[in-house]
């Protein structure tokens, strides 16, 4: 039941418990209780809007930075990851397999601002061996949502 609820909310966080209870044919109080539990045990971490900032006045650039690290004794990469993710401009930090160790997604107002972050904050960290910054030129799809979807026009014919 919980995974069904999660799937629905992951797709549309605005669904109300009442709507979910009808869609899944479950008692409303059970749905409400399940959602409360999922929220309090940290399975549901939050609800956010997906914003296409390109459609607004606000200037914004996104960059993905590949970071190579020297692991610390006993702590592996955790301590360095923490140092990095505490910066508010850092949107996500992933530990990766392969050619580099951390993938850091950062958002800034301008390329200059991002470059400043990399050179002044990220690169000087002792354990950081190297960085490679890739600027996002255009988002096509993010968290399963298409950014360039044409307006929702129903072109289906009415044949049967």
């Amino acid at each position, binding site marked *: 039941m919980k995974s069904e609820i999660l799937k629905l909310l992951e797709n549309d966080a605005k669904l109300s418990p009442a709507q979910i209870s009808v869609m899944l044919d479950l008692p409303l109080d059970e749905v409400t209780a399940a959602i409360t539990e999922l929220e309090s045990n940290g399975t549901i971490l939050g609800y956010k809007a997906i914003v296409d900032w390109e459609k607004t006045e606000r200037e914004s650039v996104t960059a993905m930075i590949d970071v190579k690290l020297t692991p610390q004794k006993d702590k592996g990469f955790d301590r360095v990851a923490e140092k990095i993710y505490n910066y508010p401009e850092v949107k996500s930090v992933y530990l990766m397999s392969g050619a580099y160790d951390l993938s850091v997604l950062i958002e800034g107002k301008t390329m200059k601002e991002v470059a400043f972050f990399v050179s002044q904050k990220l690169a000087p960290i002792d354990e950081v061996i190297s960085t490679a910054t890739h600027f996002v030129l255009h988002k096509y799809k993010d968290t399963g949502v298409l950014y360039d979807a044409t307006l929702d026009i129903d072109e289906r014919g009415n044949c*049967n």
Partner: protein
Amino acid sequence: MDYGKLLSKTVVNTEKSGIRKFFDIMETMNDVVGLTVGQPDFVTPWHIREAGIESLEKGKTYYTSNAGTMELRVEIDKYLTRRFGISYDPEKEVIVTVGGSEAIDIAIRAIIEAGDEVIIPTPSFVCYAPITRMAGGTPVIVETTYKDKFKLTPEALKAAITPRTKMLVLPYPNNPTGAIMTKEELEGIAEVLRDTNVLVLSDEIYAEMTYGRDHCSIASIEGMKERTIIVSGFSKAYAMTGWRLGYLCAPAPLTEQMLKIHQYCIMSAPTTAQFAAIEAMKNGDDDVRMMVDEYNRRRRYIYNGLKGIGIESFEPEGAFYIFPNIGQFGMSSDDFCAKLLYDYKCAIVPGNAFGAGGEGFARISYAYSIKHITQALERIEAFVKSL
């Protein structure tokens, strides 16, 4: 030119499908929320589209054999065996058609001629009676009722059979009512037919869209395969309406004749679509599940939504339509739907478009997003409250 003298009277006297009526009006208006469309809102899954594209890239732009590629016919047999426990010889008993519609057409035309009767339960999809008439036959309409959850009963069937009856159309899961026939109910129908020389044209295009239980094909019931023509297709299950691909399975003496009609008027079904369909049947089961689960959630949502507004419907068990009873509002289906459209900008299809027994009802499609359905329900509620 006096076209009136030239045109076939049978065709001229055939009515246009009533499904489009309000849709056409809706197209001329702004901000209408429609629940009229009888096709999935999903796009064909990407891996299936890709298979079609790849076939084009590889230059597979020829006609296939008349009955369709052998690979696809083999997959159709495997699918029917896997899903419904019925098997057909891909060599002789399967024809790939241009949608389920062509399958219905060639099946009726191969069997029916002047004087023959075809029993058609209604409300049902609109094509069976016109095709029967165009073949020279006589449609014998059997009205199903709300009380019977729009199922065909053995008694009603028995009463409709005459010495001229050649065929029973069995349109379940049903468009527009959402009714299904369970195995036990089909046993009752089979019991009536076993001692007759009547064929069943089983239109199973919505077979994947059943909720709470799996579809049962009448061909899987003892003694019925030899007297059944199964019509189905890819449109609904795989969201492939625009590819125009269906199929027909029947005993070889029947398909041999049907194939002649198909050969002369179609040649072969679209090749690109056939390659996409092979991929659909090989690797599409999960996509079907995902879509059917979503329809099921919407089905519950709209059923409860209508109930909350005070409109009763029997809970649909198949297809993606709900058929609420609007008779309680003292208006004809046409008036109800027209007022709802003009005054509250919500379009649904009057039940009478689907033949006798549909008056007093309306068809609402839930092949739409929850958000869209919610909006439509708000408008229906406002309308009903104003009455």
